[in-house]
């Protein structure tokens, strides 16, 4: 009985905020989140149409195109980093595994959770889960199930940190033993659902602009999720490095530079392959004439400005060891991935309509709410659990 009380009191005390309350970040994000919650309430009371600009021809908009499809791409850092550390045994990146897995886990919880906001009849979401009605023939069925299983796998991968926070030694040992299995399971799932998000749009052949539609969308999404995830790791790592400076252990500080250089090398290589994949698909489609149209210029902008340019930046900054340039390249890459995903799902989707879809400000606010909520939880975890800081001594002894 005492044990439960102690844990309960401990958890309650952990809920109290650490550090200043009125930081600029808090002041900006909190009102937006409150507004977003109000909008979500309206959405459930008056229907999706009351807060979004969706229509019968454009059933999926910002919430699916950005929150789910793009957000999940950025969470791809988790499966790439765990692949590099646990499968390829690249110990250099070991210090960023935990924070990347945490990020990935929270991203899936919030962005796939944001998907619930987009469902018209969310109370029926348990149907494809509990076996009431399995739609095996559906790519969305596969994607949804993989999201669930992947969240569980990531939770298992991250759980040793939670056990260390709670001081549960035996549980931590058991969970550590499950790490490799969770990592392998997670990488397999990621391969399928990152490409699955692309496969969702395969049936919309006549609706997506030919420059972005091909049978290879799944492969494209998978490859771009690799450098999207790594760019997010670079970007988020740079911010965390500054914001949580005091939390990071000495060892991790020193490792930062080497890690950034290594990641930029990998990004450059992957983007090189991705560019040539896109080129192959373009040649196969024979859409030369389309390049000379407004959408064609947009396509070239995406490919050249947001794939080739950051690729060269990554390559150059790796060769010259310029850390600052790596961060610029990462931001450009992320913008490019956002652009690509939005082009397939929203901008290129029914591009031929007279009145194009533009997200309403309410959709944007709700999206921001989801994003900020994720960052708040992320901050809460970093401030309490051994993610950026070193694990307690008893944990390293356990290995």
């Amino acid at each position, binding site marked *: 009985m005492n044990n439960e009380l102690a844990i309960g009191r401990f958890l309650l005390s952990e809920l109290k905020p650490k550090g200043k309350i009125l930081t600029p970040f808090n002041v900006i994000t909190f009102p937006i989140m409150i507004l977003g919650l109000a909008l979500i309430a309206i959405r459930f009371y008056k229907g999706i149409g009351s807060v979004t600009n969706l229509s019968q021809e454009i059933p999926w908009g910002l919430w699916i195109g950005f929150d789910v499809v793009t957000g999940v791409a950025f969470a791809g850092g988790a499966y790439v980093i765990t692949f590099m550390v646990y499968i390829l045994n690249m110990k250099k990146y070991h210090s960023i595994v935990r924070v990347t897995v945490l990020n990935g886990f929270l991203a899936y919880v919030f962005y796939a959770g944001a998907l619930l906001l987009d469902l018209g009849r969310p109370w029926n979401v348990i149907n494809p889960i509990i076996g009431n009605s399995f739609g*095996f*023939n559906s790519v969305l069925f596969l994607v949804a199930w993989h999201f669930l299983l992947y969240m569980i796998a990531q939770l298992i991968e991250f759980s040793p940190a939670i056990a260390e926070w709670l001081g549960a030694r035996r549980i931590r040992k058991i969970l550590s033993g499950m790490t490799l299995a969770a990592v392998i399971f997670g990488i397999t799932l990621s391969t399928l659902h990152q490409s699955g998000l692309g496969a969702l749009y395969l049936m919309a052949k006549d609706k997506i602009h030919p420059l972005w539609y091909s049978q290879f969308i799944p492969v494209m999404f998978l490859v771009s999720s690799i450098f999207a995830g790594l760019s997010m790791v670079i970007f988020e790592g740079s911010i965390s490095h500054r914001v949580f400076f005091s939390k990071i252990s000495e060892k991790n500080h020193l490792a930062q530079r080497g890690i950034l250089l290594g990641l930029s090398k990998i990004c450059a290589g992957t983007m090189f392959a991705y560019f040539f994949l896109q080129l192959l698909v373009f040649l196969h489609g024979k859409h030369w004439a389309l390049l000379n149209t407004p959408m064609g210029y947009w396509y070239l902008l995406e490919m050249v400005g947001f794939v080739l340019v950051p690729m060269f930046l990554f390559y150059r900054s790796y060769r010259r060891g310029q850390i600052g340039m790596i961060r610029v390249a990462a931001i450009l890459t992320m913008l490019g991935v956002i652009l690509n995903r939005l082009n397939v799902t929203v901008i290129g989707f029914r591009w031929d309509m007279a009145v194009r879809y533009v997200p309403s400000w309410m959709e944007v606010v709700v999206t921001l709410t989801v994003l900020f909520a994720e960052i708040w939880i992320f901050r809460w975890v970093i401030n309490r659990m051994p993610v950026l800081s070193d694990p307690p001594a008893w944990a390293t002894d356990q290995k």
Partner: protein
Amino acid sequence: MDGFTYINMFETKGIEYLVIIAFLILLIPFWVILNKRAQMAKQMKKTLGTLSASILRIPQGLYYSRNHTWTHLDTSGNARVGLDDLLVHLTGEMNFRSLKNPGDRVGKGELLAEFEQQGKQLRIYSPLSGNVTEINRLLAEDPAVLNEDPYGKGWMFRIRPTDWKAETATLYFAGETADWFAKELNRFKDFLAGSMNYRSRGSSIVVLQDGGELTDHTLASLPGELWQDFQKEFLDPDRPVG
């Protein structure tokens, strides 16, 4: 598809997913059992008396010197010194004779002790400088403890080091020692082959060339001349880097 009657393109998807789940669930015990085989193979090698790098013990937290001694700084500020597992596995049981007394000063690379086995001798040199504070009496009483527990009860000397940080900077740390032990074993096999040819002595030991197995306590059944060569090759300070 004839277009006139119902056909389900994804008819078998349900069964396929069940098979996948079964595969993944079975994969875990399958993998664990296979790896247990590898562990058992290691154990078997040990009981058969074959000497390979995988059975050698290398505790964490100790420093290892190229002369096959180890040292560890304990909380009292004294460093314990002993012989590493590779050496005692090669030699077998030996008798210990200290050449220093408590209170003596010893320098790094200076002669510390002598080990003897049926007239064959090995000289052990110190991995660090300092004052000898204690000699392990148990070693003299029960030589077998050297092979059973070379890092624990089989320690040789307690030395109060005078320059711990600088001198241990050049020693191996546990993580790198496994690789180094494996390399030393290979070097020992080459050494045996070379020395046998040089001494041109027929021998009845089971020592195969090129990746064959060594028996445990290899040196025990070899003559004194080989011990002298071994001393020069592996235990003397300032020997050429292998």
